[in-house]
């Protein structure tokens, strides 16, 4: 009995901070329709700012409360600045670009935090009152956890009160229902949006600082928190605050029990819960269908097969790659291989996002499954390279099929968030299952028998892979897939099974990314968790968007340009901030990608 009680209470306590962050995210989405990737970063800033404030204040509860409120106010201000400086300019951009721009903010804020507070974890020195326990059903329970448990429902109640009882709140709710109507009422939308964003950011900061006593301010908070927040928001229903609380409680309590019953499997457990909820209620516990997201219907331009000059350019490119061993040294060869792998990786994402119409923020998952699949096959089963290279895409394809079966029905934002969440889970498995994967040390010593000859294997597989994808995209399957993206109802009325086509494309795309991962593993001799990181997923996204999503040439150009660009950026400190700035600039100035930009200029 006491076990159940204490685990439930522990779960409720962690649910409160999860809820604060997720509530902010969901409120911001409801009004602005922007999925704020930087929300975890605001939470992280809350932790660091809170640390700086609280360590300078007298250590009693009253000052603590004051410091917490000051932190929330500070992050709210940062949020307002972010909205005015960036988001306001991209409300009309496609969802994916908004996500990408806010990811640029994640990178910039990560380096800014590193620069301001240094690389070390900063735990909060805990005064006696923070260390107090109370006896509950015969076991000791931290007093502060009880405070947290109370804060969740209090904030929920406060938010509901504000949204239902104040004019501002009513306007926010109206804007959530119908943005144009509010504009018609003559309300200053800009002020409304900025204030909503500030509120959301303040909630994130509040969540960050309140988690401080039980942990520390550290640089991992941003991505860890955003993943959990995405899951909670999706499970609860996008835009629903009550749903966010329910989901936070569900997942917090489940994790608290999971840690005891199935240690190491909590993340998988979370994903299973999410899958079950989405199968039963595709729009989350308290969510509603908001209709097709905008990305699904827009950005459709005529897709043409390559013209003469494109084929010529591709021929010259191919000749250069063929001759590369004669032209460049070992470093150049490494970059050439990376470019080839990037090409296949980006082309596979293009299949999913372009013709498939399914934006993915977690494409590195399939790459990583292929990379680890090949590495583990080679290491543990002494599989020869050709078999490992064949097995990897099969594994990745099977995984993509299993995941896709749950999520391909969903629309834009949901897909982006869920693919990201799944990638984070794969990443966590790679890091945590040390016995199998070697954890952060990775799997080493996976070299091809003939490293020089391997370059040509990589060349053949990557170019061949891209050509196979291209052929499939111009087959009846590819056209039917595109038909379903362009006009879902029209396609269905012509007998096209859109869901099945999307699932097949999802699987195909995962398999191709898995092949890219396996080739990468053999070219580097190892597989590391970084292959599965969010930034690797974003690499692929940038390549596709850099090149333009309208044709397969886009991701290929993007992959080559980005791999070159990245090697330049990586050679310096604070590369993340630079990359983030590049992403933000790209979204602001080249929303159609480089290829799309060139197309328009012609």
């Amino acid at each position, binding site marked *: 009995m006491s076990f159940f009680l204490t685990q439930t209470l522990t779960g409720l306590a962690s649910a409160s901070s999860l809820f604060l962050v997720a509530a902010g995210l969901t409120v911001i989405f409801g009004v602005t329709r922007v999925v704020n990737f930087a929300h975890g970063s605001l939470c992280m800033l809350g932790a660091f700012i809170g640390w700086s404030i609280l360590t300078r204040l007298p250590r009693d509860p009253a000052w603590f409360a004051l410091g917490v409120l000051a932190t929330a106010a500070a992050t709210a201000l940062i949020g307002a600045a972010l909205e005015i400086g960036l988001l306001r300019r991209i409300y009309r951009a496609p969802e994916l670009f908004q996500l990408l721009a806010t990811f640029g903010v994640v990178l910039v804020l990560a380096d800014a935090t590193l620069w301001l507070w240094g690389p070390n974890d900063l735990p909060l020195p805990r005064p006696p009152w923070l260390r107090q326990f109370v006896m509950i059903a015969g076991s000791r329970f931290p007093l502060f956890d009880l405070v947290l448990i109370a804060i969740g429902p209090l904030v929920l109640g406060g938010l509901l009160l504000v949204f239902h009882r104040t004019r501002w709140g009513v306007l926010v709710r109206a804007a959530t229902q119908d943005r144009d109507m509010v504009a018609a009422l003559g309300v200053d939308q800009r002020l409304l949006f900025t204030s909503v964003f500030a509120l959301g950011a303040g909630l994130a900061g509040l969540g960050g600082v309140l988690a401080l006593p039980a942990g520390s301010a550290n640089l991992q908070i941003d991505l860890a928190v955003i993943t959990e927040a995405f899951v909670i928001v999706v499970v609860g229903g996008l835009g629903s605050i009550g749903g966010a609380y329910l989901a936070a409680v569900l997942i917090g309590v489940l994790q608290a029990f999971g840690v005891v019953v199935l240690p190491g499997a909590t993340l998988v457990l979370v994903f299973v819960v999410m899958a079950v909820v989405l199968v039963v209620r595709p729009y989350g516990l308290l969510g509603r269908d908001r209709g097709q997201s905008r990305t699904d219907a827009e950005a*459709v*331009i005529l897709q043409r097969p390559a013209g003469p000059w494109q084929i010529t350019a591709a021929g010259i490119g191919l000749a250069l790659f063929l001759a590369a061993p004669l032209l460049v040294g070992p470093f150049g060869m490494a970059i050439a291989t990376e470019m080839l792998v990037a090409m296949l990786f980006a082309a596979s994402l293009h299949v999913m996002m372009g013709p498939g119409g399914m934006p993915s923020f977690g494409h590195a998952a399939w790459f990583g499954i292929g990379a680890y699949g090949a590495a583990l096959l080679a290491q543990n089963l002494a599989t020869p390279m050709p078999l490992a290279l064949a097995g990897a895409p099969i594994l990745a394809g099977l995984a993509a099929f299993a995941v896709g079966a749950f999520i391909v029905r969903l629309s834009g934002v949901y897909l982006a968030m869920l693919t990201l969440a799944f990638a984070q889970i794969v990443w966590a498995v790679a890091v945590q299952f040390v016995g199998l994967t070697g954890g952060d040390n990775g799997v080493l010593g996976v070299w091809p028998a003939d490293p020089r000859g391997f370059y040509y294997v990589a060349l053949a597989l990557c170019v061949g892979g891209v050509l196979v994808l291209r052929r499939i995209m*111009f087959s*009846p*399957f590819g056209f039917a897939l595109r038909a379903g*993206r362009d006009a879902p109802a029209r396609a269905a*009325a*012509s*007998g096209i099974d859109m869901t099945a*086509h999307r699932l097949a494309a999802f699987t195909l795309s995962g398999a191709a990314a898995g092949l890219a991962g396996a080739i990468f593993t053999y070219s580097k001799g190892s597989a590391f968790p970084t292959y599965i990181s969010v930034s690797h997923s974003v690499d692929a996204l940038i390549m596709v968007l850099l090149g333009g999503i309208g044709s397969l040439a886009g991701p290929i150009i993007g992959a080559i340009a980005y791999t070159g660009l990245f090697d330049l950026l990586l050679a310096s400190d604070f590369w993340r901030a630079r990359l983030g700035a590049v992403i933000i600039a790209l979204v602001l100035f080249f929303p159609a990608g480089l290829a799309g930009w060139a197309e328009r200029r012609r």
Partner: protein
Amino acid sequence: MTVLAVTGLQKRFGGVRAVDDVTFSIVAGEILALIGPNGAGKSTCFNLINGQIAPDHGTIHLHGRDITGLAPRQIARLGVGRSFQIAAGFASMTVRQNLQTAFAAHHRQSWRFWHDAMGAHIAEAEALLARVGLVAQADRAAGVLAYGDLKRLDLAIALAGAPGLLLMDEPGAGMALAERGALMRLVQKLAREDGMAVLFTEHDMAAVFAIADRVVVLNRGKILASGDPASVRADPLVQARYLGAGR
């Protein structure tokens, strides 16, 4: 031979009874016009018949088989084609590719991964383009068509499925009078020669009375009157409620 039989069909949206106890049937080769003011429930009827939404009550039978609750793609495969009030083509393809895609779907070839889609069904596509008057637009992107052409393309995609039952939601919208007349004659020819059953709505009463074999008048979800065009036109209730209102 009865192609479509709709019995006691009902659909509510919140408090609105969009379709309320509607019963009618169509035989092969027959052209039935569904008319009524905006919001009468015509499009909802179409959406119910092609499976896009599920009815609250009532049944839909196709060739004697109960198809109530089937998905749109299943109903399409049973030979029901439709065009949309708000026409939509496959915007990222040329007009010809739109039809090639539709023909491939009709011939159950949408799962071919290795064939060249652009090399297949060319002759069929050209023939259909000629019938609906889109030859000049064949190589243009569907996304940039004028609305009248888009309506024609939408109809052509539906016809590519060689439907035994064709549903047309305001096919003539956005077209000049002569174009609309030509389109209606094409549909009439298909009905007469191939025995295709047609259910359509249209605001242009001249077009309706020119080709319809029978007319059903819908008002606020309910059937107000039905019968051959002449008697419906003469019906005092219809005169008062609908035709009299300046049309």
